[in-house]
C-alpha cells in the first residue's frame, strides 16, 4: 500500500497504552446536496472501527454519520511498549483499510 488512510500513534506510559488515530475519510452524511447539480450526495461513512491488541479485540466502535470528516479517535487500554496494535475501519460501501503499528 502506497499510502494508508490511517495515521496511528500508540504510546505506553505506566502500563497504559494511549492510541491516537486519524483516518482520512470524507464521512458523507447523505443529507448534503451538491451545489452545482442540486443532487443529494450519497451517504459514505465509516460504520465500524476495530482495534486489535496482540491478537485480542480491545475496542470496536459503531459509528453513525455524525462523526466528523477525517475522523479523530483516541482511546486507552492496558499494555506495554512493543505490543502490536492493529486498527481497521469499514465503511458503508464495504471499503476498508487497516494499519498495524508497534506501541512506543
Amino acid at each position, binding site marked *: 500500500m502506497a499510502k494508508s488512510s490511517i495515521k496511528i500513534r500508540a504510546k505506553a506510559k505506566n502500563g*497504559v497504552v494511549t492510541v491516537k488515530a486519524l483516518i482520512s475519510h470524507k464521512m458523507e*452524511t447523505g*443529507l*448534503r446536496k451538491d451545489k452545482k447539480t442540486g443532487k443529494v450526495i450519497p451517504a459514505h461513512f465509516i*460504520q*465500524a472501527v*476495530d482495534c*486489535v*491488541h496482540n491478537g*485480542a*479485540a*480491545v*475496542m*470496536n*466502535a*459503531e*459509528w*453513525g*454519520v*455524525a*462523526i*466528523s*470528516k477525517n*475522523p*479523530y*479517535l*483516541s*482511546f*486507552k*487500554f*492496558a*499494555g506495554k511498549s512493543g505490543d502490536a496494535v492493529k486498527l481497521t475501519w*469499514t465503511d458503508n460501501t464495504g471499503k476498508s483499510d487497516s494499519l498495524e503499528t508497534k506501541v512506543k
Partner: protein
Amino acid sequence: MLRRHFLKNTMATGAAVLAASSGLLIPGQVLAAWNKAAFDAKDVASAMKGAVGSDSAEASDKIKIKAPDIAENGAVVPVTISSTLGDVKSITIISEKNGTPLVAKFNLGTGSEAYVSTRIKMGKTSNIIAVCESGGKFYKAHKEVKVTIGGCGG
C-alpha cells in the same frame, strides 16, 4: 440415542440464543450487526433503546464529558468522555438535537480504560449525552454545547 441427540441439540441452540443476546463484543461481526435501526432513530429514547437496549439510565457524576461550551463549527466538535465507573463495557455518545441523535457506540474489551475521544458533528445547540454501561447497568451524563454554525446539511 435419540434422546441424547435431542438434548444436545436443544442445549446447542440455547447456547447460541444466549450468545446472540448477550454477545456485545464479538470481533468481526460488527459490520453485519451495524445497528441500522438505532442509527436511523429520530429521537433520543429510541436511539438509546436501539443502541444499549434500554432507554433509562441513572444519572452519574462519575462520567466526565469534555467538550467546548461553545462550538464555532458544528461540523467538528471535539468530545472526550471518561469515567471512573469500574468495568465499563461500552460508551455511547448521543447528540440530542441531531436528525439522528445516535453518534457512536464504543464497545470496550477487557483491559480497556473508560476513555474515548473523538470529533463529532452537531446540527445545533444541544446536549451531548454520554451513556456508560458498567456492571449490567447504564449510567449517563450530559453537557450542553452551543453551536454557532450547524454541521449537518451545510
